[in-house]
């Protein structure tokens, strides 16, 4: 009997919270012991920085520490909103995000649909294995490849010069930054991104196809009336979740590819935070920008999660 060490004749729900907690701690003491390092980890390395974000409201000086630095309220936020950078960063972040979405979101879906139509399982698995590969190559190597291929004597540059493009280092031209970024992103992730859709496709009831075939529907009609409608719930969920990270362009690739010549189009919020904070030591200012970004991201993610929960309830029969 579990609660035999507590008052015998009192029903469980009449015990106070504190008493129940004490009993639980005693009964599950090994489990609680086990999880202490985990909780400590989250408190130190995840909640610590959340507390530390308070320096966005102060002017942090390393010598004075977090508590000793003077309070300035929303000054850094105002500076940021009124600065020249603000609109440029928002514009760049959204441009890169939306372009990646428009071209990068449908690509894995199309690939999954086409792989699904292949008749040879062996060929299909080979295609999958090969197209997943770039996902595992490190960002440094991917960007190294991009730098090599797009410099003035690079393969891609030479190839495109046959179509009239000038033979100069492509990564110095701000107008070429977004296409390079998005295209290489698709190259790297289209294979891996198709996994989820392929998984969803294998979950479609084969009997639906049988019935359609008997009714005389050809492959195209089957795709249109069975495959795509069955895929729509997955697509919607993933799309909505993707919308939630609209302002969340990761900085690793940007930092590896950008340079002062391309800041105008390449600098995004996260790369700006890195540069201002770690390279230029404007601790509080960049912490403010980072906090702004985190809050917006959080709001977007919560909203899109909520929408996704609402819509999947109505779209799942």
């Amino acid at each position, binding site marked *: 009997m579990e609660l035999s060490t507590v008052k015998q004749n009192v029903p469980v729900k009449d015990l106070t919270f504190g008493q129940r907690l004490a009993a639980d701690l005693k009964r599950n003491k090994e489990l609680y012991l086990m999880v202490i390092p985990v909780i400590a980890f989250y408190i130190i390395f995840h909640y610590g920085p959340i507390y530390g974000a308070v320096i966005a409201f102060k002017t942090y000086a390393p010598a004075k520490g977090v508590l000793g630095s003077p309070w300035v309220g929303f000054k850094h936020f105002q500076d940021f909103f009124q600065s020249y950078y603000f609109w440029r960063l928002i514009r760049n972040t959204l441009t890169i995000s939306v372009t990646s979405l428009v071209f990068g979101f449908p690509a894995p879906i199309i690939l999954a649909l086409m792989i699904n139509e292949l008749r040879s399982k062996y060929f299909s698995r080979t295609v999958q294995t090969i197209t997943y590969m770039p996902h595992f190559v490190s960002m440094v190597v991917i960007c190294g490849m991009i730098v090599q291929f797009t410099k003035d004597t690079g393969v891609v540059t030479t190839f495109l010069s046959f179509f009239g493009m000038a033979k100069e280092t492509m990564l110095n031209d701000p107008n070429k930054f977004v296409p390079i970024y998005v295209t290489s992103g698709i190259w790297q992730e289209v294979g891996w991104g198709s996994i989820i859709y392929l998984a969803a496709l294998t979950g479609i009831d084969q009997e639906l196809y049988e019935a359609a075939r008997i009714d005389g529907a050809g492959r195209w009609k089957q795709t249109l009336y069975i495959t795509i409608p069955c895929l729509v719930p997955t697509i919607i969920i993933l799309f909505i979740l993707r919308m939630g990270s609209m302002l969340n362009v990761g900085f690793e690739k940007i930092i590896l590819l950008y340079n002062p010549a391309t800041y105008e189009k390449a600098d995004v919020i996260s790369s700006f935070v890195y540069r201002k904070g770690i390279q230029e030591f404007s601790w509080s200012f960049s*912490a403010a920008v980072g*906090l702004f970004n985190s809050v917006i991201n959080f709001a977007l993610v919560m909203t899109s999660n909520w929408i996704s929960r609402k819509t999947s309830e109505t779209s799942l029969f």
Partner: protein
Amino acid sequence: MEIKQSYGERIFNYFNILFMLFAMMLTLYPMLYILFASLSKPNDFMMHEGLLYGPIGFSLASFRAVFKNPNIISGYGNTIIIVVGGVALNIFMTILGAYFLSRKNVMLNKVITLMIIFTMYFHGGLIPSYLLVKALHLDNTLLALIVPGAINTFNMIIMRTAFAAVPDSMEESAKLDGANQFVILFRIMVPLALPTLMVLVLYYGVAHWNSWFNAMIYLRKRTLFPLQLILREIIIQNDTNSMTTGSSADDKEMISETIKYAVIVVATLPILCLYPFLQKYFVKGVMVGAVKG
């Protein structure tokens, strides 16, 4: 009854196969180009323009230069230490957390779960994290690359699902035999959830192998630099000087090109070699994660 394919369907099949071949070629060609370039004679490669269909001339000079570079050797060593140490810590912490979260009749379970999941959606930002690591004096040590990332919440959720799938009867009968939770976890649960555990080893391992940013902001001693950071110097910042000491200026310029390709090959080959064998485990992880998430 055989339903014959229409003419249109047959054309589509051929087109599809062609499309797939094209997609595979597009995926592979950049990597093949790099391989060919790394095996080419430096002088001949410099003079060549356009696509490569094979190495130009054949020369291992670039690879020789790569392996003579002490930074590459130390980079490899550091990365191996980081991967082994990092994954060990990752798995240990992830198992502890996942097991706790999977036990249903623990009062604080919901609260702690919420507290952990919240961190997936909101964090303090780069600057506060950076200042924290410095305040803890972890900076300029390899610990800065291992400890702050000890648990990946998403991975822990995957592990939690695996533990939760073990029937309660196993835990019950073990308790009857007098086992405490530690024994249950390490002697029963872990062996039963081993496949999922291996998936996490792979995920954490690849993440450590490929990581460079934390090393860049926290490390100042070159002897601690992991491989990817050394790579970054060479192939992105164009700094091959450390590798070509002793050659004439012209030679330097020519071999520095093919060296970059050789260095990419050397850094990526381990992952690409292991990859075909482990691919299905990676894919399984995505499925489990997707279904749960």
